[in-house]
């Protein structure tokens, strides 16, 4: 018996579609379905979720037939340093104020590239912070606190 080989890219994609579809289907199930005449909040999403699961199954079946391109290298360092930047900014912008929040976000993101050295990163982040402060706080007059209560302001 020949074992079934699944193309990794499409296999993942199919599984992903099915997972997303099931998530939305489950979430819609709890909602009021209504009738075709007066659709409730769950009707249309459940329909879409079912279609998504179906499409996922089709992709999965295709994955067993055709071998596609491999997934390729992943930007681990990038993910590890780029993604936390907005999260950190969100967590600290109220408490620390936006000047430190931007500075840290920029500084973290600097190291996403292996080529960045600490000193240029520091200078660059400071410059970006200064620029953002003048543009957003002075220029556009946004009501953000430059320094927040955590720093005793």
């Amino acid at each position, binding site marked *: 018996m020949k074992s079934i080989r699944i193309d990794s890219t499409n296999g993942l994609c199919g599984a992903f579609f099915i997972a997303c579809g099931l998530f939305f289907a489950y979430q819609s199930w709890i909602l009021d379905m209504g009738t075709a005449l007066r659709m409730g*909040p769950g009707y249309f999403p459940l329909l879409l979720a079912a279609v998504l699961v179906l499409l996922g199954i089709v992709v999965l079946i295709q994955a067993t037939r055709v071998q596609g391109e491999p997934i390729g290298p992943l930007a681990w360092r990038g993910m590890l340093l*780029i993604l936390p*930047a907005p999260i950190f900014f*969100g967590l600290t912008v109220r408490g620390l104020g936006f000047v430190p929040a931007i500075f840290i976000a920029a500084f973290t993101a600097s190291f996403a590239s292996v080529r*960045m050295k600490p000193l*240029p990163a520091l200078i660059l982040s400071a410059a970006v912070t200064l620029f953002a402060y003048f543009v*957003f706080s002075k220029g556009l007059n*946004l009501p953000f606190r430059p320094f927040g209560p955590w720093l005793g302001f």
Partner: protein
Amino acid sequence: MELLDNLILGFTTASTLWNLLFCLIGVLLGTLIGVLPGIGATATIAMLLPITFQIGDPVSALIMLAGVYYGAQYGGSTTAILINMPGESSSAVTAIDGYQMARSGRAGAALATAAIGSFFAGTVSTFLIALFAIPLTVVALKFGAAEFVSLMVVGLVSSVALAHGSVVKAMGMVVLGLLLGLVGTDVISGAPRFNLGIREYADGLNFVAVAVGVFGIAEMLRNLENEHDRSVLIRKVHGLLPTREDFRRMAAPILRGTALGSVLGILPGAGAILGSFASYTVEKRLSNHPEEFGKGAIEGVAGPESANNAGAQTSFIPMLTLGIPTNPVMALMAGAMIIQGIVPGPNVATEQPSLFWGIIASMWIGNLLLIVLNLPLIGLWVKLLTVPYYILFPIIMAFCSIGVYSVNSNVYDLYVVAFFGIFGYALMKMRCEPAPLLLGFVLGPLLEENLRRAMILSKGDPMTFITRPISATLLVLAAAVLVIVFLPAVKKKRAEVFVEESA
């Protein structure tokens, strides 16, 4: 004459000092970011979108955004010509012959040809928009809920047809986008949906945050996969002015490119991409010396660049008149309008004529600014290409963060950015196009609302979509597009086109 009055109203709105300034800023910023290799027009607009919200006046904000769009597109062709790295698929064709021209020392002429072609196409298509806007609006005002549903189906189906790669995956992207668009509160019953109990998402996922994540962040991550050096071929561009022989050779391709691009741009889902491919094929076929194509034929730059720009502009027609965005960039524009408190659709032209015509007039002004600015500034853009890529990450991340936060002062929007950053990157890795997803995201709530309304109006009879003539015609069109995509011959050709493009 009404058309003339409208255009005068538009030009007076667009040429106030304030609006000119925003148009200028938009064009400059758009070119600046568009020139950066690997960042296409859509990502550029997504990243600059938050900034426009700080402008109180919706007219100025949209004028600036439109400026960003043309700027980004122009910047994209500059990178395509100089370093053979098209940021967007629509300038991929330009790269073929443009880069070859640059290699043989004619970068200046190639850039000038692109600029002249774009400007001419922009002028013609601005008038086309002005000409078609009112009649189409009149038709659109007759549309009921059922027609809008069918129209959106056409738009979504076409976006599937024109996505790269697998059709099934693109369909999945549309459906997933529609579902994500429904996150928040159900408009009719007020019931919260899919927000995982987080009150901050009651108004739905912030469109800007999703766009910045899926396009901006995901694209940065992809660029980080392998950091290799870019070879900048040209340090100095000289001899900008094309020769008389060049002008003679580019005239006809520009005219044909403009015509092709304008027509194809109106089609839902087509945008600028289809036009530039079609134009390249036509020019190659009509040329007396087809062997020069791929080796630096000026026709191969002039035609596609004109088509590209004409299509970019006429794709505003369905968005402005029907409220249906036909490509991701228009989805971004529609999202921007909604955030500014304007519901895109046929009512915009009648209720806010100065906004409507102001945007149209600003398109032409934007094109004029581009040609005036960019030819002398080309030296600056070339320098920009030598800027090491890694210094951009902190700058982009800082501005994206503060920009997204400034839209609603909602910190949860920033978590959406991060989530959709990785989500978009995962999609990219699974070879799924994000463009249909974004289109679905914007149209999701609209589609559901109109579907429910149509069903109530028809007393629960789904035949309403087929018995109403306009709706039926649109659905037949959608079905035809789907059938065509699945035809074996077309399927093969489609694969070829997209392979050529990514090569």
